[in-house]
């Protein structure tokens, strides 16, 4: 059960921030064809993760779905082992900002993950409609994109994934 509902699709205005442009990802990250989709340690919501898995698979990637309530240690070790093309963190329980800030430091501290694209999205605070400051803080802490829940969130996220080097190209290169 959860304080917030299973609802994670909103019609509020999107406030997405994307830090790095595609070229920088081409240069620094985006290896392989596996994407990690994950919830955060205190977040029990699942439907967002099921949906994201299907969506990312349709965009041409394999998905390792770590599911809900993933402890920080497990998230870091799985990502270190998998070395994914992208890490997608989804949070809808209102602790996303706090937990997301904590986790990004641990991910970026890994040598193998310093350049891996990492994005976070969902309902990131308890008040609804997170402040621009929080979003800027997340980006400054090392997220490549922040997708605060809104009408165009899925579209923005899909665009972001499509803008990454295609798995097929990677295959051809390797």
């Amino acid at each position: 059960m959860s304080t917030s509902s299973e609802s994670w699709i909103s019609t509020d205005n999107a406030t997405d921030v994307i830090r790095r442009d595609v070229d920088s990802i081409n240069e620094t990250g985006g290896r392989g064809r596996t994407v990690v989709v994950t919830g955060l340690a205190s977040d029990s919501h699942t439907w967002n993760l099921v949906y994201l898995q299907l969506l990312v698979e349709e965009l041409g990637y394999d998905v390792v779905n770590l599911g809900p309530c993933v402890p920080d240690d497990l998230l870091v070790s799985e990502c270190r082992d998998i070395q994914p093309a992208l890490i997608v963190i989804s949070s809808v329980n209102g602790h996303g900002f706090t937990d997301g800030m904590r986790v990004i430091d641990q991910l970026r501290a890994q040598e193998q993950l310093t350049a891996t694209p990492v994005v976070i999205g969902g309902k990131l605070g308890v008040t609804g409609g997170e402040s621009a400051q929080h979003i800027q803080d997340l980006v400054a802490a090392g997220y490549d994109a922040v997708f605060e829940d809104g009408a165009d969130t899925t579209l923005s996220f899909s665009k972001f994934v499509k803008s990454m080097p295609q798995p097929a190209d990677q295959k051809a290169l390797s």
Partner: protein
Amino acid sequence: MTVPVLGRGGFGDFVARARTAGELVVQPRMGFSDPVDMRAGLQAVKAAGATTVGTLTLDSYTRVGDLRNAEKALSDGVRLNGYPIVNYDEATTRAVLAGVRGTDFPVQVRHGSAVPLDIFAALMRAGIDATEGGPVSYCLPYGRTPLDESVRNWTRCCELFVWLREFGMEPHLETFGGCMMGQLCPPSQLVAISALEALFFYRFGIRSISASYAQQTNMEQDREAVAALRRLCAELLPAAQWHVVIYGYMGVYPASDEGAYALLGRSAELAVASGSERLIVKTVAEARRIPTIEENVSALEFAAGVAHDTDPADYPAVDQDSQVYAEARALVDAVLDLDDDLGRALLLAFKRGYLDIPYCLHPDNMGSARSYIDDDGRLRWAELGSLPLGSVVDKVSPRKVASADLLTALSYVRHTYDDAALEHAAARTISGTEHVLPRKQHERHGIARTRRGR
């Protein structure tokens, strides 16, 4: 009467007395990290124009046993999404409840933990006699705790909880098994898991029990489900005080206020039409954020008003041998046949896929069963996997589900109620008639209501 008064003045007795008085008990989900806010929330719920019980919803750090981060948030002044009952000392929680909780206003702790021993200890220290959960429903949908660990934990908690009787209290446990992922689980499996969890509590000596059922996609099917649940509980819990609690829709909620109120109203109708004793409400804010105290009070009063205006006699009788019952019965029987120890039987059931929650990502869930919403809005099986329903379910309907299909299914209820709200608005504009928003109805009900059954 399925709900005898046990005379200990606790949660179960309050619901039993309300039932006798013909009142539906309504309850919010509500939790704040600041004790002052928490107390104000309980006071507002108590003062609402409805027959209410109070809720302490815990924060999600506490739910996963991460007391360190709960503590850090408290010391940093970061607001949590619930009340961290384990981090606060007994005196703090008793102060939150003092003069608010009583025989006329019981309070339940709602959490969601598969590792709940600390939570049980804390709520018992604070003199609280009611909480909720279950070895399956608080494990599979919501985390990574292995199911066998959850079964062991919930066994210990039940054994601990019955000690309350030594202090003159009657422990009450509510199953969360009627929810399982909130949406897209066919009602028969919700009923089966809710009934099995109720039996789990019963076998460990709990004698005041509520079995939950979460509103799904079709009123008729929901009524059949509650009838099936009542039939199973009557059989499985012969010597218990028990009642049924309905959860207002737990899936993707309508975005419009009018749609949200209409859906909430429908859950109140379901509660009354199905003879249920208690309803846990949702608010207009569900689609956007955690609701405020005021939004919760509005939802409680609105639901109570609709319940008051609903006459069970207006609904046709439900077939006691419905398809939902046949499936739920088959699932319960198959699980009980696996082992005399219900905890072991539940573990085996998930291992063999006799119970299998569609789309649940937990490693102990087989994940072969799939569901769909048919043209009438009924939830049906698309694929049975290893569920022992081959002789009960006529036909399944396998299909490839793309992300857009999943979104459509998840949003079915939202769209149904938001579209209806839009059509109403359009009809009003065309006909030039006065707006009669659900909010107005609730205000009318709210003023007219008194707290009866006290």
